[in-house]
């Protein structure tokens, strides 16, 4: 009888414990399409794949962080480069999911595409637990993206003028080589030097490789870096012009194909320009 009572007591405590732990673990979910990611499963995956760089506390101070450039993201601040939401806002679950899936070119963050969709959704849910922002705020709705205008000569010319007017050249350089007068002074939000993107060499951008991705980078900015949002300064039509101009700065993208595409456009056909090689 006494034994039974002891055991019952223990069960009570266990229930209490699980209730408490459960609250913490299941605090965060992610929703990507029809998928629901769960932080508890994400934690296991995070410990396996991510902890070396992003650290057990998600502050980007994993054991490998000292050797990595650019530095791993600090999830605690809730500041993320690749978003569909305005500057200063939290990213959507979808944005984080895309970042995990795509990885970041020119960095140590690989594409985690080999993981299942469910696993990536679980990781997103867990990553969100590191920052209180995700509990306190909701990400606003993504910036709207009107359909792309034709990438004709006129659009490219207008883009060129805007590239000058909006001082893009101050960092990215007159020819897009990342050698503008301010280029050497740039630091990220943790004080580490960060080079502006060299359009002439790169074939992919930080947040994707399509024209749509480039448009989104322009209009949302890359939070935590010197790259601002141009949502206040450019109309959507102007932003597409800048996108089309930037494409002409990419020396490593198959020129021939692009020219052919442009010619088609000039004749009024509207297939998106600058399809990227893999």
């Amino acid at each position, binding site marked *: *009888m006494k034994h*039974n*009572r002891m*055991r*019952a*007591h223990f*069960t*009570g*405590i*266990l*229930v*209490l414990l*699980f*209730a*408490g732990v459960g*609250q913490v673990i299941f605090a965060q979910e992610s929703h990507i399409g029809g998928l629901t990611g769960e932080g508890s499963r994400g934690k296991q995956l995070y410990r396996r794949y991510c902890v070396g760089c992003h650290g057990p506390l998600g502050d980007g101070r994993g054991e490998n962080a000292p050797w990595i450039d650019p530095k791993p993201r600090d999830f605690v*601040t*809730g*500041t993320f480069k690749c978003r569909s939401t*305005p*500057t*200063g*806002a*939290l990213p959507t679950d979808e944005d984080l999911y895309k970042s995990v899936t795509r990885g970041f070119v020119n960095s140590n963050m690989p594409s985690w595409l080999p993981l299942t969709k469910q696993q990536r959704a679980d990781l997103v849910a867990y990553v969100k637990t590191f920052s209180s*922002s995700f509990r306190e705020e909701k990400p606003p709705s993504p910036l709207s993206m009107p359909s792309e205008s034709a990438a004709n000569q006129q659009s490219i010319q207008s883009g060129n003028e805007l590239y000058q*007017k*909006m*001082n893009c050249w*101050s*960092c990215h350089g007159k020819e897009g080589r990342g050698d503008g*007068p*301010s280029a050497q*002074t*740039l630091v990220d*939000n943790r004080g580490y030097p960060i080079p502006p993107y060299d359009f002439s060499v790169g074939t992919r951008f930080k947040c994707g490789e399509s024209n749509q991705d480039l448009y989104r980078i322009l209009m949302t*900015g*890359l*939070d*935590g*870096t*010197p*790259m*601002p*949002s*141009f*949502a*206040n*300064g*450019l109309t959507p039509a102007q932003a597409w012009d800048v996108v089309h101009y930037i494409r002409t700065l990419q020396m490593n993208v198959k020129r021939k194909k692009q020219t052919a595409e442009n010619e088609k456009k000039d004749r009024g056909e509207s297939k998106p320009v600058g399809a990227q090689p893999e």
Partner: protein
Amino acid sequence: MRTRINYLKIGVTAALVLLTAHGAGTRTLRAIGTSSEAREDTSGAATLSGIVKLEGSQPVATRINMAADPACLKMHSAPVMSEEVATGTNGALKDAIVYISDGLGNRTFDPPTEPVVFEQKGCTYNPHILGMRARQTLKVANSDPTTHNIHPAPQNNREWNLSQPPGSSPIEESFAREEIIPVKCNVHPWMKGYIAVFKHPYFAITTKDGTFDLKNVPPGKYTIEAWHEKYGVLTQKVTLETNQTRTLEFVFKR
């Protein structure tokens, strides 16, 4: 066996109670955050004024080279000096922030409805140091014929970064939490300013003569800090009696 079931029940009930309590606690916290319980009470308020000085020889301001953007260069006939350290006569230190850092307890203060303006003019920030209240509207204006990007680098607030071409309407933003936020323009790396955000009205930015004035402070024990972008923070503790007027002197060392 009966006993066991009873204990189990107790366990479950306790867990449920705990959960409910937790939930309720969160709700209460939110309620405090959104409404304002304490109003500014000016009867019997004290005044704290004083001066901030810099000890030693007066530093020479460095010259800013704006050659990177001809549009900036053209706006100035005289050389532009860095505003990092500006002093007046007798070592008076300009652009220090003096504020209550502790002692206000749970008092909350509604932000003023009128906005504050942070202007980009002549490729510098005007004012160099802006004081404002949490949740107050901040208007960022561009009076220059060139594009700036306004990029606050907060620790406790959300970081944002907006490009602002000439002639565009002011950007409206606000900050939710208390913090002194460095602001820069990445396009023009010499542009540096600060936006000091407080959740209470008891702060002042020293003028050219180094003086500051904190009015209508409720009596109490306070920690007062003087902050300077180059020389750091000085702290003093004061006790303010009803209707008292006190003066303080902060002396930064080079």
